[in-house]
């Protein structure tokens, strides 16, 4: 099957049939941080993907709001007693 992955963008060929959760595991990707798209539909982790399928694995994590300045590790370093 053809697999398109983002961040970084790459295309892979994997042997099918295989369940979605096994594809993610093989690529060392966490389910909670990704969605798998086949055509215009989302597919669940237990779905069996055929060798002829083309899927997109889309990461869903974004940087969101800028991180606060006070998270800098050098900022206000605590000392152990």
């Amino acid at each position, binding site marked *: 099957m053809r697999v398109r992955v983002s961040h970084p963008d790459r295309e892979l060929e994997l042997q099918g049939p295989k369940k979605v959760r096994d594809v993610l595991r093989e690529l060392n990707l966490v389910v909670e*941080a990704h*969605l798998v798209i086949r055509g215009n539909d989302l597919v*669940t982790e237990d779905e069996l993907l055929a060798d002829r399928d083309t899927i997109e694995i889309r990461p869903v994590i974004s940087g969101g*709001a*800028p991180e606060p*300045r006070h998270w800098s590790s050098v900022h206000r370093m605590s000392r152990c007693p």
Partner: protein
Amino acid sequence: MNCTKCKIKAVIGLPRHNAAFCKPCFVAYVHEQVAKAIRHDRMFGKDQRILVAVSGGKDSLALWDILLRLGYRADALYVDLGISGYSTRSRDKVVRYAETAAATAGAKLLQHEVQEEEGAGIRELAVLINRPTCSACGTIKRYQFNRAAIEHHYDVMATGHNLDDEAARLLGNVLHWQEEYLDKQGPSLPASVEGFAKKVKPLYRLTERETAAYAILNGIDYVVEECPMAKGSKMLLYKEVLNRLETESPGTKQRFYCGFLDRQATAEPSGTSMIEKDRAVLHPCPTCRQPTTAEVCSYCKMMARAKSAVTG
């Protein structure tokens, strides 16, 4: 995997709710979660005017879409940061949504260009003032969104922060023992002083995966690529860690953030104390009149530094 409600084939599984949904049931679930957040945290009513901060990403466009579908009066503001390529692609996504679905619902899009008003793009400004780009971006966005909400007389400003954003921020604040910042981690911040708009986060009950699924299932075309400035950010690291925990123990992010909100509500049953605290320390900036705790607000200070760096 079948839909928990109607038993047809599911499109998404939600382990934290021990549920799975087909498309119509998932869309209904998302709408219910947002409606519940709006109601529970008294965010706004149907007669109020809302300004949604949109970036072109999945969360903010999904939020705009959900509010319009729920029948709220929601316009949006896009701040163009002037990051070559990325900002153009983001703006295209926002404009496309604004001209189609939003226009049909009678909503409008406001735009602000950093390059035009601040005189340079965000990267150049950050270099001029010797500050990290994300920090300069945060200052400009907060300032311009608040300013637009006040100047255009919106009752409330809504952002697309989701459960992952809030849990990661909470983790960061706890790891750095920033107790003073915890006060402001609630999903609804009052307009405590004149010049401050009320700020709400209606997506705080939904994970990032759920807002992305909502956007995809509803054909909302969003910018998938990550902001080039966010690479290596701690926020991304904390989210990654939380998602590993979530995979092993579904519901971790919700228990962490909602547990914090429960404790905060028990400690301070009314929002009065935050308003009182703000009123004690905030005063108008002498340059722009926006509230600040410092002598001059961080936006005006930043722009003055950039100006002096240019003129030498």
